[in-house]
């Protein structure tokens, strides 16, 4: 089916997020306004105004009432999804790169970039039921051993017991979310060789996938951090997602944006590539973007997915019936 082109952002897309019901799609971009869309027809529902820098990441609560966003303006903000009202601002001394609500939405993990003399860090904040009671204090602050390297993504592990992080040092780390102890590091032998750009977990928290500039994506066991699968492609991977319905993973990326104008348009490979999750074989690709893909998200019903590119577009794809009958 023809994709729906959603042109609401003026700058490259950075992140996409569906709510649990799969009817809403949140998009973040380097312009300062996260935007909310109907996930079905791509109609724009509204924007969240208040940030003063590129917005890198967002997450929505299970009941779709709260939105948290992390921005380069050194803040993370809590929003009321329905009214678009800003509820609370967490201030950091450095840009916030990723945000993630815990199971139950009582906690949020926020990562901050190395900035000036500050090193990269992972902050855990308690999210109050009533925004009036919200406090800015961190429950826990984790310092990465590679303080000058950015942490690109941190998410909660099963039962909120752990935090999984990945970043520029190409190492995936699992932390104890109670004590802040570093529990596991990914094996350098089998792990990524270049910065990890993206990390997406399965709906049931059993495994997660990481994408890296080393042109591979890897699937890991979330509890043991054992490498399960590797998917290799020809271009750096900027975004990854997994189909909740079929055993498919999707990789997005493309050559570095700075090299785009110097080569043939076909060289860029700005495709969302589908791989069989188990056999690690490529199934197909979805073309369309004319810049690298920065964000990918699968609708929780597994019947549509959307991609956001450096070109400023969000492309919403409802998958054809044929797709569900692919045999390889």
């Amino acid at each position, binding site marked *: 089916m023809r994709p729906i082109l959603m042109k609401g952002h003026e700058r490259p897309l950075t992140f996409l997020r569906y709510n649990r019901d799969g009817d809403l799609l949140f998009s973040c971009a380097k312009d300062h306004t996260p935007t909310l869309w109907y996930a079905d027809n791509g109609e724009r529902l509204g924007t969240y105004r208040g940030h003063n820098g590129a917005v890198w990441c967002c997450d929505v609560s299970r009941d779709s009432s709260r939105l948290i966003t992390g921005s380069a303006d050194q803040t993370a903000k809590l929003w009321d999804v329905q009214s678009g009202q800003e509820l609370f601002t967490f201030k950091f001394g450095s840009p916030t790169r990723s945000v993630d609500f815990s199971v*139950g939405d009582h906690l949020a993990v926020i990562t901050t970039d190395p900035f000036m003399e500050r090193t990269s860090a992972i902050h855990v904040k308690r999210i109050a039921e009533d925004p009036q009671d919200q406090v800015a204090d961190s429950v826990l602050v984790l310092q990465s051993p590679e303080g000058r390297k950015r942490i690109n993504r941190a998410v909660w592990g099963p*039962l909120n017991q752990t935090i999984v992080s990945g970043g520029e040092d190409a190492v995936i780390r699992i932390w104890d979310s109670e004590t802040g102890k570093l529990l596991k590091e990914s094996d350098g032998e089998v792990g990524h060789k270049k910065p990890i750009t993206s990390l997406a977990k399965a709906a049931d928290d059993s495994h997660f996938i990481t994408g890296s500039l080393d042109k591979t994506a890897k699937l890991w066991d979330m509890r043991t951090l054992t490498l399960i699968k590797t998917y290799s492609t020809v271009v750096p991977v900027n975004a990854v997602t997994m189909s909740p*319905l079929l055993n498919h993973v999707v990789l997005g990326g493309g050559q570095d944006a700075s090299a785009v104008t110097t080569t043939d348009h076909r060289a860029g490979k700005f495709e969302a590539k589908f791989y069989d*999750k*188990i*056999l690690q074989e490529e199934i197909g690709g979805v073309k369309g973007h004319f810049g690298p893909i920065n964000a990918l998200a699968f609708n*929780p019903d597994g019947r549509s997915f959307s991609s956001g590119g450096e070109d400023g577009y969000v492309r919403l794809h409802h998958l054809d019936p044929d797709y569900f009958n692919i045999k390889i």
Partner: protein
Amino acid sequence: MLQFSFGSMEVLDIDARAAKLGIDWSHVNLDSIQLPPGQDFGIESDDEAVYHDDQSEFDTGFGNIIVVDHLPVVPKEKFEKLEGVVKKIYNQIGVIKENGLWMPVDPDTKMTLGYCFIEFNSPQEAQNAKEKSHGYKLDKSHIFAVNMFDDFDRLMNVKEEWEPPQARPFVPGENLQKWLTDEKARDQLVIRSGPDTEVFWNDARQKNPEPVHKRPYWTESYVQWSPLGTYLVTLHKQGAAVWGGADTFTRLMRYQHSMVKLVDFSPGEKYLVTYHSQEPSNPRDASKVEIRVFDVRTGRMMRDFKGSADEFSIGGPGGVAGASWPVFRWAGGKDDKYFAKLSKNTISVYETETFSLIDKKSMKVDNVVDICWSPTDSILSLFVPEQGGGNQPAKVALVSIPSKVELRQKNLFSVSDCKMYWQSSGEYLAVKVDRYTKTKKSTYSGFELFRIKERDIPIEVLELDNKNDKIIAFAWEPKGHRFAVIHGDQPRPDVSFYSMKTAQNTGRVSKLGTLKAKQANALFWSPTGKYIILAGLKGFNGQLEFFNVDELETMATAEHFMATDIEWDPTGRYVATAVTSVHEMENGFTIWSFNGNLLYRILKDHFFQLAWRPRPPSFLTAEKEEEIAKNLKKYSKKYEAEDQDVSLLLSEQDREKRKALNEEWEKWVMQWKSLHEEEKLARQSLRDGEVSDVEEDEYEAKEVEFEDVIDVTEEIVQESM
């Protein structure tokens, strides 16, 4: 100069260590690291040369000192005068270091001892001074004898009496041709990507390359097969080395030539030519060139040539750092008898028995700009451009070596340029001639075709149908009588095929056909002829057309996007197309069958080089080959059966692999599902008791059909009869 490769230490270890120490490994120039002499930090070098080879160049620190002998013996009063004279002589050649001149004095007689030491700024200057001043006549009875200080120990140790060298016991070598005995008759290829050099079998049946040997940092610039495929040569700081052998690649021989830049084999791979050039310290001087010729098997240096780059090239600076490579062109055939060098107004032909010039002198040919050997015979073709503003015509001539008799020559008028193309079996020579039009404003091209093997060497002139067409590429069919030309205007030129003899027309060239408007700019004949690839490289983004010239039909068209290199395997069964690291994207190579079936594709970052291992010519006689070709059906049956077995096996393997993968996954899924079940309650409590744990039984999209009557109206359709 010590060079360590980290044999036992894993590169990854090193990376990890470096990361810990905060060193960005990619910014470290490994070549610049030098350990203090005698200290190895416990790292064993895997290069036994460091331990055993007395030839390897240790920098003892005295390389810039020379010893000048046969100076006059003078008393104290004249000491300063002599010192002044010596200083003056050597200051003209190089820069003497401060206090770099030391003339020892006999403590008893206060007379000088008749020699002195001079220290220069650099070993090169010292070498230069030695060469220039050795034999310098100060006066009748004082002729300088100059030596490098470093050579002194060696010279002192020469025994007075000659000792017969000890005969070494014969050690049977490995079978250097073992790769030819491969049961599946596969071919090997070498690739370089990143730091690694790898040799593979091209296993087209398995659709995979089978690794043979892999080594990181095997070479410092590039690798090259010898023309018959016996050796693989690698380049290093200290010189070149050849590798080969039965199973793994072992080092067979080394050739010392420090900072070697280029190498070249003689066609029968008896000799190896190495090239080194040095940038001059004074930018106005020509760079210095040193070329050495080695015997490949013994490793002995047969001759070396030194000089400025001008002596090895014609016209202004061009080619590689001054000289165009290969500087020495080898006469055809496996005998490796002659090699020729072109320099200004002269062609120097050397023979390999004594490594000296034939008849002790070079051939004088005014203004010669290009020479070319026949690939099979010792015939040299040469081209002299027009002289004196067109008064003296341009000339293409064939000269027989060693007699230096001119076999044939042709004068050509109003010529702007010529290119010579020999057919691979030396039967024909095609000369592409670019001529000026009458106005001299533009050029047009034609061909002069020499039939070497016929009596008197008849020459035929060929012009294209549209003689204003630009010629983009030309290629002879290997071992055949045909050639292909790409001509016309970009971006869609035409491709024409001609034959030197056809059934009806044996003595004349005739056109076989023209393909109109092809996206091609390069021609790649199969080494066995008959098939050709019309390739559009560079601007055409890697268009490939596999063409059968016998039937004049296209077998397949394909594209290897951005392909930069195309190489046929030596048997003409497979073709490799590669994207080397001129682009950053999609580096790697693809293997095709001769008729354009994509067999497999390998991606490698920083892909630099791909080369098939050549095969020596077949021992079969022409008759035998013909017989095989006739009865091909009989032979092919056996191979087809084998092919089928392999493909069955492959699909079986594939199925099993998939099954195993699926089972493994299922097992894993079961495992975490049980864990997940255990955690169910904990999860609920985290969610404040919310039970809806939808994802537990996976999201299920149900299709619900819903029917509703919206409206019912009745219309009466009138029958219009």
